[in-house]
C-alpha cells in the first residue's frame, strides 16, 4: 500500500515539477491545494491530498516556513526511521517511517497514513503534524485555512500559588478588555481554541474560553471569574508563545472544583512549575573593611627540610603494597641511605618523605581495597637539587600507622586499629647508615588547621603563576546588564596580578590588553596536523602554552558566567585534572567569604584550558552577569578587588609563599 502511495506521490509530484518549470507561480498553485496560515498564503512545492490528509516532504520550503512561524524545528536522518518535530513549548512530535502511529508530547495518536520515503524525500501527513502543533485545518472559500489555536491551558499549584499558562501555536497577541476584582478578560487575536467552555483554575477562579471572528482571522476570549475576588500578575513568559498568570484568591476563597490540567503534555516525572521561585539574594557582600585572613598553614606541614642532615643521595628501587588482614603493608626498597620524616594530618591523611631520594619509577596511585586505607600515592617531588620521594596514605579513620626500618629499606604498616592519641609526626634515617629513630619530632598542635580532605597532589615549585583573563578582542564573552565579560576578566586579573606580585610571586598574563591571544606558530601547527577546527584550538592552546612553556606553578583562568535563569548566581571553581581539585577547593574557601557571592562550589568540568595545562589549573567563573545581585557586584570596583584578594588568599593558602618547594596543600 505504501509502495503504491509512493508511486502515486511520485507521479503527481513529477507532474507538479514539470508544470512548475513551465509557469512557476501559477503551476505551484495549480498543482497544490491552497493554504492560508496566519493571514498569508502558504505555498508548498508539493502537497498531495492523501487519505483525508495532505502529504508533504519535510524538506518542502512551505513546510519550513510553516514550522518557522510556529517556532518548531524538524529532525530527520536518512537510514533511520524517526522524524521528530520539536515544538516551541519543547514538546516533541514523533513520526515513524512506515507507521501511522505518532506521538505528540508523549500522547499517542494515529495519522490517516504512515509517513514514507519517496526517493530521498521523507513524506509526512501535514494535518496530523499541524494538529500536534496546535494548528487546525479549517475549510475556507477555495482554500484550507491552517488556523492557529490556543492549544493548552496548563494549571499548576505550588506553595499556595496557582499559575496558569496559556499556550498558543503562534506568538501570543492579546489585549486586556476588562479588569475588575472579580472578572478579568483577555482577548487573543489570530487564534481560535478547541478548549471552549469553563475550566476551574483553583484559588476560587474559573476560566471561560469562547471563540469568535472569522476562519482567516479568529479570536479567542479567556475570561477569569472569581466571585470572591482575586488578584493576578503576569509572570515572565518563557517563550513568546505563551502567557503566564499567577493567581491569588481572596482570603477564604475555595475552588469550586479541583483544578485539573487541560491538554498538558509535560512529562509526568517532571511536572513543571511555570514561575521560577522567588529569588532570595545572598547576604550582602563585604565591600569594604578588612579581608579575613586565610588560614595560616601549620609550620610543620610547610616544612619539607629534613629533620636530620640528608644522608643520600638514595634511590627508591621499588614500592610494593601488600594487604594484611584489613590493613596494608608498604615495603619501600631503597639503595643508599636517606633521612625521612612522617606526618599525620587531622583529616586522615598520613605521609612520609624520603629526603635526597629519587624514584626510579613513575609515581603512581593505588586503591588497595582494604578497610584501613582508602588510597596510596607515590610521587617524586622537591627539586632536582633536593629530590624527595613522598608516600602518602589516605586512611579510613584515625588508623594506626607504624614505620619500621628494614635491611633493604622501610616498612610502613597501616592497620585497621584506631590510633589513640596518635603521634602527629616522626623522623628517622634508613639505609646503610640507618639509625632507627621513631621518636616523634615536635608534635604539631592538635588544633592545627588542615587542608581539606581531598586526594593528594603535588606541585612543581615554580615561582610563576599564570593568570588567564577570559575572552578578549572580538570575543566579548558574555555581555548583559551593561557589562562585558572580557573587560571584567582583565580588570580582576590585573588586580590579582598586583596582589601576587606584592606577595613575591612572578606573574604572567595570557593577555594584558583587549586581544584574544593566538600564536601564529600554533595556528600553523594546528592547521598542519590535520585535526579539525584548528583556529579554535590554536586560540585556546596559546593560553595554555603560556603556562606550559614556563612550567608555571599554577594556572588561574578568570571568567564571568551567564544563565538564562536570572536567579542563578554565585562563584564556580572548575577543575579537570586530579591535581587541580584541591586548588579549586582551596580557592573556594578563600574566595567566598571575601567576595560575598553565592558558593556554587568546585565542579569537575572538561574545559579546554584547564585540561591542556600541565600544572594545577582552575577556571573561576566569578559571578553571574545575568543575576541582578551579581551584576550589581560586578559593577563595583570594590567587588572586583575583593574577588582578586580572595583568589590571592587562596593562592597563598594553597601554594604558601614563592620559593617553597611544596606547600601544605600539596601534601
Amino acid at each position: 500500500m505504501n509502495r503504491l502511495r509512493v508511486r502515486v506521490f511520485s507521479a503527481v509530484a513529477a507532474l507538479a515539477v514539470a508544470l512548475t518549470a513551465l509557469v512557476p507561480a501559477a503551476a505551484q498553485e495549480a498543482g497544490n491545494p491552497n493554504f492560508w496560515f496566519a493571514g498569508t498564503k502558504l505555498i508548498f512545492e508539493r502537497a498531495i491530498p492523501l487519505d483525508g490528509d495532505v502529504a508533504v516532504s519535510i524538506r518542502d520550503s512551505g513546510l519550513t516556513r510553516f514550522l518557522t512561524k510556529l517556532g518548531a524545528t524538524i529532525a530527520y536522518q536518512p537510514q533511520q526511521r524517526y522524524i521528530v518535530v520539536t515544538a516551541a513549548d519543547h514538546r516533541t512530535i514523533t513520526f515513524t517511517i512506515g507507521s501511522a502511529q505518532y506521538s505528540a508530547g508523549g500522547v499517542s495518536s494515529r495519522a490517516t497514513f504512515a509517513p514514507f520515503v519517496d526517493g530521498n524525500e521523507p513524506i509526512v501527513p501535514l494535518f496530523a503534524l499541524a494538529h500536534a502543533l496546535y494548528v487546525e485545518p479549517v475549510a475556507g472559500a477555495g482554500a484550507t485555512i491552517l488556523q492557529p489555536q490556543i492549544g493548552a491551558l496548563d494549571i499548576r499549584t505550588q506553595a499556595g500559588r496557582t499559575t496558569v499558562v496559556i499556550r498558543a501555536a503562534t506568538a501570543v497577541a492579546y489585549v486586556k478588555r476588562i479588569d475588575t476584582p472579580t472578572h478579568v478578560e483577555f482577548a487573543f487575536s489570530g487564534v481560535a481554541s478547541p478548549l471552549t467552555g469553563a475550566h476551574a483554575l483553583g484559588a476560587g477562579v474559573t476560566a471561560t474560553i469562547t471563540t469568535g471572528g472569522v476562519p482567516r482571522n479568529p479570536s479567542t476570549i479567556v475570561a477569569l471569574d472569581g466571585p470572591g475576588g482575586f488578584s493576578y500578575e503576569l509572570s515572565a513568559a518563557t517563550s513568546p508563545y505563551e502567557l503566564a498568570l499567577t493567581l491569588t484568591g481572596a482570603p477564604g476563597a475555595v475552588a469550586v472544583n479541583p483544578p485539573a490540567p487541560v491538554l498538558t503534555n509535560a512529562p509526568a516525572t517532571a511536572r513543571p512549575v511555570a514561575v521560577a521561585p522567588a529569588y532570595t539574594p545572598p547576604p550582602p557582600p563585604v565591600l569594604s573593611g578588612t579581608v579575613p585572613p586565610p588560614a595560616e598553614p601549620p609550620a610543620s606541614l610547610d616544612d619539607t627540610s629534613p629533620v636530620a642532615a640528608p644522608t643520600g643521595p638514595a634511590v627508591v628501587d621499588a614500592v610494593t603494597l601488600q594487604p594484611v588482614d584489613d590493613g596494608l603493608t608498604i615495603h619501600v626498597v631503597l639503595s643508599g641511605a636517606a633521612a625521612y620524616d612522617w606526618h599525620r594530618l587531622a583529616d586522615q591523611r598520613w605521609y612520609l618523605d624520603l629526603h635526597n631520594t629519587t624514584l626510579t619509577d613513575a609515581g603512581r596511585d593505588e586503591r588497595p581495597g582494604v578497610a584501613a586505607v582508602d588510597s596510596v600515592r607515590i610521587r617524586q617531588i622537591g627539586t632536582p637539587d633536593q629530590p624527595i620521594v613522598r608516600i602518602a596514605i589516605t586512611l579510613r579513620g584515625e588508623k594506626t600507622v607504624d614505620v619500621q626500618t628494614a635491611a633493604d629499606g622501610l616498612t610502613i604498616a597501616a592497620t585497621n586499629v584506631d590510633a589513640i592519641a596518635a603521634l602527629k609526626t616522626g623522623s628517622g634515617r634508613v639505609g646503610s647508615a640507618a639509625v632507627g629513630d621513631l621518636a616523634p619530632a615536635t608534635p604539631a598542635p592538635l588544633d592545627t588547621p588542615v587542608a581539606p580532605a581531598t586526594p593528594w597532589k603535588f606541585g612543581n615549585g615554580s615561582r610563576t603563576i599564570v593568570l588567564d583573563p577570559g575572552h578578549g578582542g572580538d570575543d566579548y564573552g558574555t555581555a548583559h546588564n551593561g557589562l562585558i565579560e572580557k573587560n571584567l576578566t582583565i580588570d580582576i586579573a590585573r588586580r590579582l596580578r598586583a596582589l601576587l606580585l606584592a606577595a613575591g610571586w612572578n606573574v604572567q598574563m595570557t593577555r594584558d590588553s583587549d586581544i584574544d591571544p593566538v600564536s601564529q606558530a600554533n595556528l600553523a601547527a594546528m592547521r598542519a596536523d590535520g585535526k579539525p577546527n584548528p583556529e579554535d584550538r590554536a586560540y585556546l592552546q596559546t593560553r595554555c602554552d603560556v603556562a606550559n612553556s614556563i612550567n608555571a606553578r599554577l594556572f588561574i583562568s578568570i571568567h564571568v558566567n551567564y544563565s538564562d535563569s536570572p536567579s542563578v548566581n554565585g562563584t564556580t571553581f572548575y577543575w579537570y585534572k586530579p591535581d587541580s581539585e584541591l586548588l579549586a577547593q582551596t580557592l573556594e574557601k578563600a574566595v567566598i567569604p571575601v567576595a560575598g557571592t553565592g558558593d556554587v562550589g568546585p565542579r569537575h568540568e572538561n574545559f579546554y584550558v584547564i585540561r591542556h595545562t600541565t600544572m594545577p589549573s582552575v577556571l573561576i567563573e566569578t559571578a553571574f552577569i545575568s543575576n541582578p545581585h551579581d551584576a550589581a557586584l560586578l559593577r563595583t570596583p570594590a567587588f572586583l578587588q575583593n574577588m582578586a584578594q580572595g583568589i590571592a588568599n587562596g593562592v597563598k593558602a594553597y601554594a604558601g609563599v614563592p620559593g617553597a618547594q611544596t606547600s601544605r596543600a600539596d601534601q
Partner: protein
Amino acid sequence: MRATRAVALVLLLVAVAAASWWFLGRHNNGPESVVVYYAKAADGTTLVPWTVSLGPARDPRSVAFYAAVQAVAGPAAGVDAVRFPPGTTVRSADVEGSTVDVDLSKDVGTDVEGSFREAAEFKALVYTLTALPGISSVRVSVAGEHVATLPGGHLELDEPLTRQSF
C-alpha cells in the same frame, strides 16, 4: 507418496517462516523507551531523568537519534531546565562501537555565554546517550565539522565525552 512429500514441504516452509518471523521479531525488539536527562536550571549540574516511549523503530541508530533529539529538545516548557540554544537540532546520530557520533546544527554555537549552559546542556546530552545499552561516549560535531570547542566556548569537544568528563 507425492502427497506426503507435498505435506512435508509445506510443513517445512511453515516452520522456516515461523522461525524467521520469530527471529526477526526478536531482533527488532530494542528498548521500549529511553531515559532522557535534563540539567536543573537552578544549579546547572543536577540531572533529572525522565522516560520517553519509543516508536516502533528500535534499531540502535534510530534509538540513538531519537534519544539525542529528545535530549536537545529538553523537557516540556515550564520545566526549569538548562536548554540548548533555540533552533538547535540533531542533524544525525550514528553509533560506532560504544560511541555515538552526534552532529548538531550550528545553532548550538549561538549565544555561547559563560560556561554554565554549555556544561549543563552537554552533560545532559552525554548522560542521555550513555544511558543507552552499550554506549559509553559521545563525539560531538557541529554542522558536520568536528570542533575543539564551540565558538567562544569552554568545553573541550575535540575528543569523545564520557560521564567522567563532567
